[in-house]
């Protein structure tokens, strides 16, 4: 009963929030909104550069964080010796997952933007977000790998499989649905982040579409933040409309996660 109530409160708050956003934003949301550049005039402003920026950053984040995170998880679970150093590494990864995202923004600014001289670029932003979601991907992938029964590994070893053959043919394919789900959920966290990217230098006003990794950029959450800060109510409607766009992006990513998981689960 208490739990049902707790669940109801959560759902009601979420529903109220969604209702509010849709009431404010539905009017401003049309095809032109998706294809227009931002503008001083609320009636002509659109979300195109921010949406494209988000997609660029997202793809690059995935390209960097995925192999690194999954590789780390495989090493920690299947290769790393069971000693103090490994435990220290694991504890630290768990701690990193709890570090506020703005701290990653400061790190990105200092290391990628300044030290590596990448500037306020898509690449610097993607590297920052990749760092942000790496611990999440590693931990979730470790869980997926741990869930593969030990008897499968023993079975493979007993046939004369090496560690790598066991991982490649049995452990990894079986853990893949869980890894994919984890990865996409981590990416959906990245796509909603504004704070670290404000620090790394996502621009508030971008009237061009990005063409290269070294280009300056903005992303949807930053665009929302900028519109909400405007005094005119018309811009607040735009912010709500952009929130809907972000929401649709997030939901479709989660849908992809579910589809992938079901697909691979069936294949196994």
């Amino acid at each position, binding site marked *: 009963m208490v739990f049902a109530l707790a669940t109801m409160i959560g759902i009601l708050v979420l529903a109220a929030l969604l209702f509010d956003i849709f009431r404010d934003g539905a009017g401003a949301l049309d095809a032109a909104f998706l294809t227009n550049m931002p503008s001083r005039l609320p009636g002509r402003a659109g979300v195109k550069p921010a949406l494209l920026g988000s997609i660029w950053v997202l793809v690059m984040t995935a390209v960097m964080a995925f192999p690194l995170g999954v590789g780390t998880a495989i090493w920690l679970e299947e290769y790393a010796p069971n000693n103090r150093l490994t435990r220290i590494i694991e504890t630290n990864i768990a701690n990193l997952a709890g570090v506020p995202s703005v701290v990653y923004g400061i790190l990105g600014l200092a290391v990628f933007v300044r030290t590596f001289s990448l500037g306020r670029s898509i690449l610097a932003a993607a590297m920052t977000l990749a760092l942000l979601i790496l611990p999440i991907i590693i931990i979730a992938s470790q869980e997926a790998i741990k869930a593969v*029964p030990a008897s499968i590994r023993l*079975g493979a*070893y007993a046939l004369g*499989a090496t560690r790598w053959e066991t991982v490649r043919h*049995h452990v990894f394919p079986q853990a893949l649905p869980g890894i994919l789900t984890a990865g996409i959920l981590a990416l959906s966290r990245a796509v909603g982040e504004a704070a670290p990217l404000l620090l790394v230098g996502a621009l508030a006003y971008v009237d061009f579409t990005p063409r290269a990794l070294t280009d300056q950029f903005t992303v949807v959450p930053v665009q929302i933040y900028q519109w909400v800060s405007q005094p005119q109510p018309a811009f607040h409607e735009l912010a709500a409309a952009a929130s809907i766009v972000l929401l649709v992006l997030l939901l479709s990513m989660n849908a992809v996660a579910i589809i992938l998981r079901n697909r691979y689960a069936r294949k196994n």
Partner: protein
Amino acid sequence: MADPIMSPPGEIELEARDLSVLYGETRALKHVSIKIPDRKVVAFIGPSGCGKSTLLRCFNRMNDLVPGARIEGEAIFQGQNLYGDGVDAVDVRRRIGMVFQKPNPFPKSIYANVAFGAKINGFVGDMDELVEKSLKQAALWEEVKDRLTSSALALSGGQQQRLCIARALAVEPEVLLMDEPASALDPLATQKIEDLIYDLKQDYTVVIVTHNMQQAARVSDYTAFLYMGDLVEYGVTQQMFTNPSEERTESYITGRFG
């Protein structure tokens, strides 16, 4: 006391010499010496925790995978110490196959299960033929020949275990180690496995760990009784079950403990 280092007639395939296994501080196997003849079935019996599975796993170096396990002494296969310098555990396991207590087929097709071991071992011949041969050896071919591409998990427990045997045979090992291969199966499936073991000794040396005394009596040529990490008695099965020389063996066999 009977000589535990009894030398069975015929060629010796596997041998333990003063073999001990330690898990941390616990000595699970204490200075065991035993000779296992070629193309015979040898059963290891004894109560839970007596070290029989530990001894079995020394012969294909599966104990290497247990964190904290340490091996002292020698396990010798065809004259070569399996724990000697430069011996690769992976090669050992390719020549000495193993079947586990609980059937553990890979969650793949029946065909893929059998083909996997051969594939990673660089088998270059006709894979279809090898799969068929291995499944026939494991007395499973007739039951699965029309559905080789369906999932191994759809098979019954007994069929899964025979698939695991086929999978081990496809690597063409010289020895087959079986760790209580029938303990998770019903009597009918158990009988099939036992018949199979009888056939397998034409071509392979089989070492089987079992909890089931009748099973040891039925399938094995030689029996070793282990108790608390010691090899108590080793001899011809029939003699051991009718006229054991050790009191502890007799107590165990007649069901007074264990």
